[in-house]
């Protein structure tokens, strides 16, 4: 994968071109006549016809149809993957990707190598985007009041509307946008407003970008984006800011964090984290303080006072808080110019101002903190959702166009958007799904998926990417720009408006630059840096927390704000700390659980000024007392067959005024829910599964030699091995998601996960040590250890699992008879068994997304991590064809490619210069369960214990 040419492929050679479409259509002439709902079956057939590998056993007939092209395009080479540079979006930000397609089917996305914002790495949302492309529950044709209509009807509707709007300059027209960074869309919105000056544009985003800007304005007096330069830091202080957690910025932050962490022989960066609800950032912190959200403003102000910020006064502190602040203040003073302080959304504007002041004092600006004008800029003045709802309720809105948003579901419960919507004469919902809003709107206009769209977007660092389609749409859908063009009274080809935007931008020699941009997946140049100073003047003391408990809202780490609720891959992805799948919980502190006698799964009722919601409890070790965590994104009603009715809907109790932190009451109901968690036991029980080194003793004791009674088997030229750096792992799950996409991992559904039958080949074991109040957390990715003396292999009675000369523990599905001996002999329990036929469950991913180089496993066979053997074989073939040896980096496993912190390194351990060999010589290197003498090929680098080992941090 990494040996790809720097230049991928440009539009002229798109495999998703008409020739391919013709071939498909020709293979299934009926396809054209299918009603949209029958398209899924059509897709199945299509996928099957493309010789998708499956463990079908014996053929029905020995002779099957072989269907050539009528006129084969030069580009199309059956069975050979092709790669395209494009982007998918999250919260409107571009996630630049390299799309892998087989015979015109996108099957896998990876971060775009060489792009500053991804550097070839990915997160879970990027990995799952390709599955959304094939989601059978996507809106498949425009509808009016639920009845299918044609785009001609839509055109007619818009021209009628335009006549209305022209009367009063669009006074009664409202456009509700979600967060966007698309220059083309911005241009179109501008044009719309120039046509209808009286029309108003409202912005509704679920991920808190508006609050970010608001905080920036409060702190610096102007709208800004704050870009953390973690790679330039040696000390970072976070006040409930989960910057390593999921979201558009996770990737960039994690990459830079890892760079800083690996600087030098000892950890190059230390993190001090005051955290209410445990998350990735707190888990990797060297010094973690457990603090309720409402305490944050006081802590920040005190820290400011310690650092001599004028006007800052010292608040009264607990012993625990004081100890942490002492150490943190000292660390900041010692690292001026190499330090950074950040604050989360829930901590309020005052905190933001203090933080700005502190960063000014410690010389962060320009060094560790880069300021730019907002990357996500709608281009016109926008009003908030609250104002829109007021206008709707007072009947001032005739036409409401909702572009790519689902306010009926995501609007704070206090607004009751649904009833407001019913007062609007004509509401037009433009979105990927006919979701809660689409069902209530008058019109629903289906959007193309990013992978079928012509569009553009900016990454979080401001760099723009031109989004090119890697596949022709197979539903009757249009891109947002086409629909905007219709609103503007034009009917345009998919790429026309995008080309126009960039024709203006590129000026002369457009074609060359355009081609270049498509090939690179990147438009040169990004957002310019801005010098801004914090606004001076008195900072109001934080308002005393109202009575009641702190109730913090978080976006779900796997289904985000709910937009991914219908993707089985993400629903079944274990959440980073709880390993929960298929639903959300109410996180409670261990102390409270003891006091109220709550166990995991007991249903709690949350009451926020009168609005109630109930969900199962989860006791979160290390959670601040009197604090409760609610996760948004579940409890969908119109998500689709996979996402409907899973978990509870936290939006319904979310207050519009303070969307991230509220005060409320929690009580225990006498109901219990079973939670589908993939790891039931989190305490390490004194085993040395995760080992630690400290600055004092940076190397582990040398492993005791393992005498083997067996004569060594000769190794091939290459001997594959993997080293996983536990210190770098932030538990983001990107590796698991990537493995799922690459290896056709089955989605088994909630019931099966509850029974303990999830199929992930790679699990991120999560442990904690210490007391449950202030534990120390660890993430340990566990793939197959590929033991050289594998206990599993000698257990198999039919030679279904054997050892390759390259040291891979091979599992041959089509030979397996399912005795499960291998699994019961496996000390690491990394093997997964198909207890039932998981290929065609309701949750199962649509077939076309499957990787044709990997067999689909049928019922009754064992499976396990193969080190992505299909990639190894592909690399071998490529090398053998040129009659050369493999080079380090020729083979990159899916998990390795995805990992944002480069914690996973794979390669040839026979080659002393390979990266993996170097790591195996490290002082932190150890093998899991070494004493068993299984001689694993997958090994680990111990975690750095820099700080929290001294007892007084655990009080």
């Amino acid at each position: 994968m990494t040996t790809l040419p720097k230049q991928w492929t440009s539009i002229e050679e798109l495999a998703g071109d008409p020739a391919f479409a013709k071939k498909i259509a020709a293979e299934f002439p009926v396809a054209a006549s299918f009603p949209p709902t029958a398209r899924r079956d059509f897709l199945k057939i299509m996928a099957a016809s493309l010789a998708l590998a499956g463990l079908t056993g014996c053929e029905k007939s020995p002779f099957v149809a072989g269907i050539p092209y009528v006129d084969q395009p030069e580009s199309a080479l059956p069975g050979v993957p092709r790669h395209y540079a494009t982007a998918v979006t999250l919260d409107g930000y571009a996630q630049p990707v390299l799309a892998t397609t087989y015979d015109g089917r996108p099957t896998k996305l990876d971060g775009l190598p060489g792009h500053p914002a991804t550097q070839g790495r990915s997160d879970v949302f990027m990995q799952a985007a390709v599955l959304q492309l094939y989601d059978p529950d996507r809106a498949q044709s425009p509808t009016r009041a639920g009845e299918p209509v044609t785009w001609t009807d839509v055109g007619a509707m818009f021209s009628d509307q335009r006549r209305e709007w022209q009367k009063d300059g669009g006074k009664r027209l409202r456009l509700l946008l979600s967060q966007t960074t698309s220059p083309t869309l911005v241009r179109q919105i501008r044009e719309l407003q120039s046509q209808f000056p009286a029309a108003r544009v409202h912005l509704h985003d679920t991920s808190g970008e508006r609050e970010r800007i608001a905080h920036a304005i409060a702190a610096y007096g102007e709208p800004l984006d704050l870009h953390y330069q973690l790679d330039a830091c040696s000390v970072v202080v976070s006040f409930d800011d989960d910057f390593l957690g999921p979201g558009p910025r996770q990737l960039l932050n994690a990459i830079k964090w890892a760079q800083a962490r690996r600087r030098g022989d000892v950890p190059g960066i230390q993190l001090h984290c005051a955290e209410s609800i445990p998350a990735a950032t707190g888990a990797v912190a060297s010094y973690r303080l457990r603090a309720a959200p409402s305490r944050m403003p006081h802590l920040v102000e005190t820290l400011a006072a310690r650092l001599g910020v004028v006007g800052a006064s010292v608040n009264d502190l607990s012993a625990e808080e004081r100890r942490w602040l002492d150490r943190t203040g000292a660390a900041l003073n010692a690292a001026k110019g190499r330090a950074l302080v950040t604050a989360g959304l829930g901590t309020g504007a005052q905190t933001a101002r203090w933080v700005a002041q502190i960063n000014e004092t410690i010389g962060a600006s320009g060094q560790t903190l880069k300021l730019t004008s907002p990357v996500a800029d709608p281009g016109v003045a926008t009003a908030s959702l609250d104002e829109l709802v007021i206008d709707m309720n007072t009947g001032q809105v005739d036409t409401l166009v909702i572009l790519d948003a689902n306010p009926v579901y995501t609007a704070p419960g206090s607004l009751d958007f649904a009833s407001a919507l019913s007062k609007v004469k004509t509401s037009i919902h433009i979105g990927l799904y006919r979701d809660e809003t689409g069902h209530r709107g008058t019109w629903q206009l289906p959007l193309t998926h990013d992978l079928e769209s012509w569009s553009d977007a900016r990454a979080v660092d401001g760099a723009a990417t031109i989004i090119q389609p890697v596949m022709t749409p197979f539903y009757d859908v249009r891109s947002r720009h086409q629909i905007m063009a219709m609103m503007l009274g034009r009917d345009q080809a998919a790429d026309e408006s995008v080309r126009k935007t960039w024709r203006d931008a590129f000026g002369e020699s457009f074609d060359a630059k355009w081609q270049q941009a498509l090939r690179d997946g990147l438009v040169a140049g990004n957002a310019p840096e801005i010098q801004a100073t914090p606004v001076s003047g008195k900072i109001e003391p934080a308002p005393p927390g109202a009575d009641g408990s702190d109730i913090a809202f978080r976006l779900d780490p796997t289904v985000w704000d709910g937009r991914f609720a219908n993707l089985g891959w993400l629903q079944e992805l274990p959440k980073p700390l709880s390993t929960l799948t298929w639903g959300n919980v109410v996180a409670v502190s261990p102390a409270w659980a003891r006091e109220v006698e709550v166990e995991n799964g007991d249903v709690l009722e949350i009451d926020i000024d009168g609005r109630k919601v109930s969900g199962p409890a989860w006791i979160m070790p290390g959670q601040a007392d009197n604090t409760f965590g609610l996760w948004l994104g579940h409890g969908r009603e119109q998500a689709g067959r996979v996402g409907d009715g899973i978990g509870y809907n936290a939006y319904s109790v979310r207050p519009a005024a303070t969307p991230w932190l509220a005060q409320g009451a929690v009580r225990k109901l006498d109901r219990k829910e079973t939670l589908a968690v993939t790891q039931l036991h989190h305490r390490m029980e004194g085993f040395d599964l995760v080992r630690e080194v400290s600055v004092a003793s940076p190397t582990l004791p040398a492993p005791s030699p393992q005498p083997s009674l067996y004569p060594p088997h000769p190794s091939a030229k290459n001997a594959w091995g993997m080293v996983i750096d536990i210190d770098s792992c932030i538990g983001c799950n990107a590796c698991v998601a990537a493995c799922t996409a690459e290896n056709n991992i089955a989605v088994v559904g909630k019931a099966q996960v509850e029974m303990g039958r999830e199929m992930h080949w790679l699990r991120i074991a999560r442990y904690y040590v210490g007391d449950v109040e202030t534990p120390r957390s660890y993430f340990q990715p566990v793939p197959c250890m590929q033991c050289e003396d594998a206990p599993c292999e000698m257990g198999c009675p039919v030679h279904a699992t054997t050892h390759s000369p390259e040291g891979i523990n091979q599992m041959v599905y089509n030979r397996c008879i399912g005795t499960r001996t291998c699994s019961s002999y496996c000390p690491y329990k990394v093997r997964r068994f198909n207890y039932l036929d998981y290929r065609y469950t309701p949750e199962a991913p649509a077939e076309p997304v499957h990787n044709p180089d990997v067999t689909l496993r049928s019922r009754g066979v064992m499976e396990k991590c193969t080190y992505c053997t299909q990639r190894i074989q592909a690399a071998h073939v490529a090398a053998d064809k040129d009659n050369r040896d493999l080079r380090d980096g020729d083979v990159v496993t899916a998990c390795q490619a995805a990992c944002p912190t480069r914690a996973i390194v794979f390669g040839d351990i026979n080659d002393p210069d390979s990266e993996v060999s170097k790591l195996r010589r490290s002082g932190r290197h150890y093998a899991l369960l070494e004493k068993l003498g299984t001689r694993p090929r997958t090994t680990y680098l111990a975690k750095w214990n820099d700080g929290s080992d001294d007892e007084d941090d655990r009080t």
Partner: protein
Amino acid sequence: MTQIFSPTADTWLRLAVVGFLSACGASLVAAIGFARSSYVTSTDIAPHQPVPFSHRHHVGELGIDCRYCHADVERGPKAGLPPTATCMTCHSQIWTHAAMLAPVRQSLTENKPLRWTRVAKLPDYVFFRHDIHIAKGVGCVTCHGRVDTMPLTYRARAFTMQFCLDCHRDPTPNLRPADKITDMTWKPAGPPRDLGARIAAHVGIRSGELTHCYVCHR
């Protein structure tokens, strides 16, 4: 007491025992044989094709190279069936009105692919790649047989795992110079093993590593 059984009863009993035992043995042998029969391996059967295409005519008599039609064979895993356009390069000039070729012309005009019936097909869980076999000097004829003598195409070899293994264990007898890959009639001058060994050394075949499972199964 009188006899319960007549003297013949013993004969019958012995016959029954012998018959039963031999029946068991026979059925075992039969089963093993059946698994190798052309019925199971579907060899020597020329399935119906939309156009009665004759490899004997095109390869044997006209001497068209395999790669002219199966163009992807050196570049990708699949050899590929010729797109209609390829057929028409000639048949737009000759046999332009042959009734036999009507489906081909129809395919072009209606832009609908021909639905050939695949003759050489492996199970889904076998990941065979043409390109690497070609690159390492395995000739077409080795697996596909003398297609230049086939009026209608059939599977010449039983594609059993044993068949693959034999060659993967010791490829040398089946290797040939790169320029003879598509040659249906080529025979090595000397003993095939000597030449094969030289070729194997030259193209760098990783002998000994070709029989482990992941080479073909994933």
